[in-house]
């Protein structure tokens, strides 16, 4: 199973990107995770741009999603909601609506924040947006609050309870993804 990881934070030392790396180590043995890191290059969504050539970063994102069996989003929370650049990327992904690569794609949303709540409101909003765009959003949540205290220097989660929650959430995601041996994945 190929999982595409998308972090909603652009910051170099992002806790959400660390959360993706932590997930990489906790995936079931038959799964692998690839982190898509071109979020910053995605231009603002503009219907006029849909008439011309697709922006490179958008094509890259769509191909990455199309080639993945499942997607793992890790989102921070900006003003009680999804970061604009991540929402913008999902808006591009959702087009054209009738044939979006998100349709039926299993998606897990997790999140980390420096505050106590672990981006739970941003996670809820991202789930709503993804479901509206046609994704198969799995019912699982991992909320990493007080993020600066939850990661080791190498990026692993140091909180056993959170690690267990992440393992379980990834299992729920894996159960929703189509069975495809990695060796046969193209």
């Amino acid at each position, binding site marked *: 199973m190929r999982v595409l990881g998308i972090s909603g934070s652009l910051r170099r030392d992002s806790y959400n990107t660390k959360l993706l790396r932590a997930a990489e180590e906790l995936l079931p043995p038959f799964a692998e995770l690839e982190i898509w890191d071109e979020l910053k290059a995605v231009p603002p969504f503009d219907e006029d741009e849909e008439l011309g050539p697709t922006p490179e970063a958008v094509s890259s994102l769509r191909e990455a999603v199309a080639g993945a069996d499942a997607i793992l989003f890790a989102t921070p929370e900006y003003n009680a909601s999804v970061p604009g650049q991540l929402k913008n990327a999902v808006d591009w992904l959702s087009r054209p*609506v*009738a*044939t*979006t690569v998100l*349709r*039926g794609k299993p998606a897990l949303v997790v999140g980390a924040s420096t505050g106590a709540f672990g981006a739970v409101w941003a996670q809820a909003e991202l789930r709503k947006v993804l*479901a*509206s765009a*046609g*994704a*198969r*959003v799995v019912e699982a949540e991992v909320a990493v609050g007080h993020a600066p205290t939850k990661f080791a220097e190498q990026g692993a989660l140091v909180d056993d309870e959170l690690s267990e929650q992440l393992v379980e959430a990834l299992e729920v995601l894996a159960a929703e993804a189509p069975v495809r041996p990695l060796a046969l994945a193209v």
Partner: protein
Amino acid sequence: MAVLTETRTALPAGTWILDPVHSTIGFELPYLAGTFRGHFTDVDAKLSAGSLAGSARVASVDVKDENLAAHLQSPEFFDVERHPELTFAARSIERSGDELEVDGEITIRGTTKPVELAGTIGDPFTDGFGRDRVNVKLETTVDRTQFGLNWNMPLPNGQPALQNEVKLVAELYFVQEA
């Protein structure tokens, strides 16, 4: 000359196959200020030996906007990938003159529930091509949330955008099997 006064209670004999071009199997429900309607174009049904059964392909859902059709096929609604078909099978059919009452089971999104339909049946007639036809119209109302179709969106006034009670409407035109 004898006057026919008895009320017919039997269904027409033989096997009758749905004419999908002239039939409509659809749904309607209150949405915002109006009524949202849709139907399925790829459908089949059979009426024979006092029984009625049919199915519809979710991928053929037809509404007035392809984006809406895509949304209806997504996991938020019918989830065509996991549940490509809707099916109905009658358990009993009672006829009194033109009136029909049908008890059966309907399967939507993989969930099967009992359902009672009411409607009418016409007299068999021969069409311009020499084929015998009979018309059946049936309706019922189901709660879509019982089948896992839970999508909604609160309006600014706090009311849900989409009602849960959905009217299912079937106008079935059958042709007698040759």
